[in-house]
């Protein structure tokens, strides 16, 4: 445990140095993560105004709160693994990671968390700025706001494990960009980024409830905004834990199979 902590701290220092050096990648991701929610916020506010002030239980202020919170949650939980893994495998960078005595996922987590620590110094002021422009209405419920912290951490871990698992598709195919884009579209709609999920037709809501994406993005947002009953919050938490177990198991199985294949190719 102590050794692992040292690894994380060291990785944090490395990432910090690297990110300050390559600010461009940082800016690009950040712009995308700000622009998308702003676009949908503007669109839905227009719809709400034209239909007498509110749509499906959201007025313009609640839409503003939803999409600004969504921007922060999405940024907190996202990873760029699926775009990087392919490169890692084809260029053999993975070989170095395999030589280390610990699982390569730890370096990735530390890398990701350090990246977020830097970008949040930009995202939080931007969220404040957007709040001044769009006037969100926030009804904070104390228990929900407290539950938000563990739910967000769990959401981050589940999304990270799911994406790490999907990224391993690169062991089997070199055309991951098509897979990545498909994943991106599914997540866009079924996690609540296009609209709050309660605005979708019922069959889509059912599909979203089965898949993990809603529980890693939409659910923490709805919880923070105080839109959930304690029962709903507990159910969501239970689904998150179930997905945590499932994704951990899948990750282990696929990782073993993938690494075996990888060494076979390299030999």
């Amino acid at each position, binding site marked *: 445990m102590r050794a692992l902590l040292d690894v994380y701290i060291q990785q944090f220092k490395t990432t910090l140095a690297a990110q300050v050096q390559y600010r*461009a990648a940082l*800016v*690009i991701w950040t*712009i*995308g993560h700000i*622009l*998308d929610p*702003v*676009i949908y916020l*503007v*669109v*839905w506010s*227009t*719809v709400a105004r*034209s*239909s007498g002030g509110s*749509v*499906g239980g959201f007025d313009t202020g609640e839409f503003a709160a939803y999409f600004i919170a969504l921007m922060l949650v999405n940024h907190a939980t996202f990873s760029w693994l699926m775009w990087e893994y392919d490169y890692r495998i084809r260029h053999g960078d993975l070989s170095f990671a395999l030589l280390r005595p610990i699982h390569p996922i730890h370096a990735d987590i530390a890398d990701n968390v350090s990246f977020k620590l830097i970008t949040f110094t930009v995202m939080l002021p931007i969220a404040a700025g957007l709040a001044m*422009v769009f006037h969100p209405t926030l009804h904070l419920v104390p228990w929900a706001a407290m539950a938000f912290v563990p739910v967000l951490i769990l959401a981050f871990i589940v999304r990270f494990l799911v994406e790490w698992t999907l990224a391993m598709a690169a062991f089997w195919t070199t*055309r991951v*960009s*098509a897979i990545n*884009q*498909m994943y991106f*579209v599914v997540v*866009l*709609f079924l996690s609540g980024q*296009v*609209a709050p999920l309660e*605005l*979708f*037709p019922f069959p889509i809501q059912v599909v979203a409830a089965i898949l993990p994406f809603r529980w890693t993005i939409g659910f923490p947002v709805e919880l923070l905004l105080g839109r959930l009953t304690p029962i709903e919050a507990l159910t969501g938490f239970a689904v998150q834990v179930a997905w945590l177990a499932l994704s951990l198991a899948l990750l282990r199985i696929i990782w073993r199979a993938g690494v075996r294949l990888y060494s076979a190719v390299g030999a």
Partner: protein
Amino acid sequence: MTYLRLLWVFFRIGVMGELAYRVNFIVQLFQSLLGLVTALGGLAVIFSYTDRLGGWRPAELVALVGVYLLVGGAINLVIQPSMERLIESVREGTLDFTLTKPEDAQLLVSVQQVQIWKLIDIVLGLGVLVVALVRLGADLGALQAAEFALALLAGGAIVYSFWLILATCSFWFVRVENILVIFQSMYEAGRWPVSLYPGWLRFALTFIVPVAFATTVPAQALAGRLTWQTLLEAVALAAAMLVASRLFWRVGIRYYSGASA
């Protein structure tokens, strides 16, 4: 004419290069269709709650999606790959070879790389436009069609000049390709009418990153709500930016010292 002939030559080179990798066609087709599904899916959710968005009817917004795909396809087909190659050749000094050729250098660098599979986006965009027009029941008059063509040309010229100006900056700064990526990510905002956005964002999308003229304005022409004033502004801006980018390019070329110098 020379421009078209050169474009054709580079297009043929692109075809020859890519025919070795035919599976890429399927992959690109799949990705383009996914992009279309995303755009139309978003519209479907929104129009299940309203019948107009900021005054735009559903079919008009579908037309906007068509223009968005069409212009985006044209950018990715030739403008973006050519400009990226230009930036790279300035850094590596291979621009020397282009400059020694007898054709106009700006012409050459503007069409030097063609990603042929992006034609799929253009075809898809045209298809979406046709569907939207049929659904609009529009008896598209000759005047309206001409307005649309003019607005589209002006939008294309503005986007091209914008990219050329940014790429020309690479004569002084090394890492400009990152600014171009920012344009790519902001282009997505053009899928919606810019009139929806709050003032500051509308201003940015019109004058800082000229997305509005590339997508909203031509779509307005199709929907029959383009004023002569806007069209004139678009054409004037296009002309001004073409001249400005040309002048700036010549300053840049003069500054360029080559790799061997």
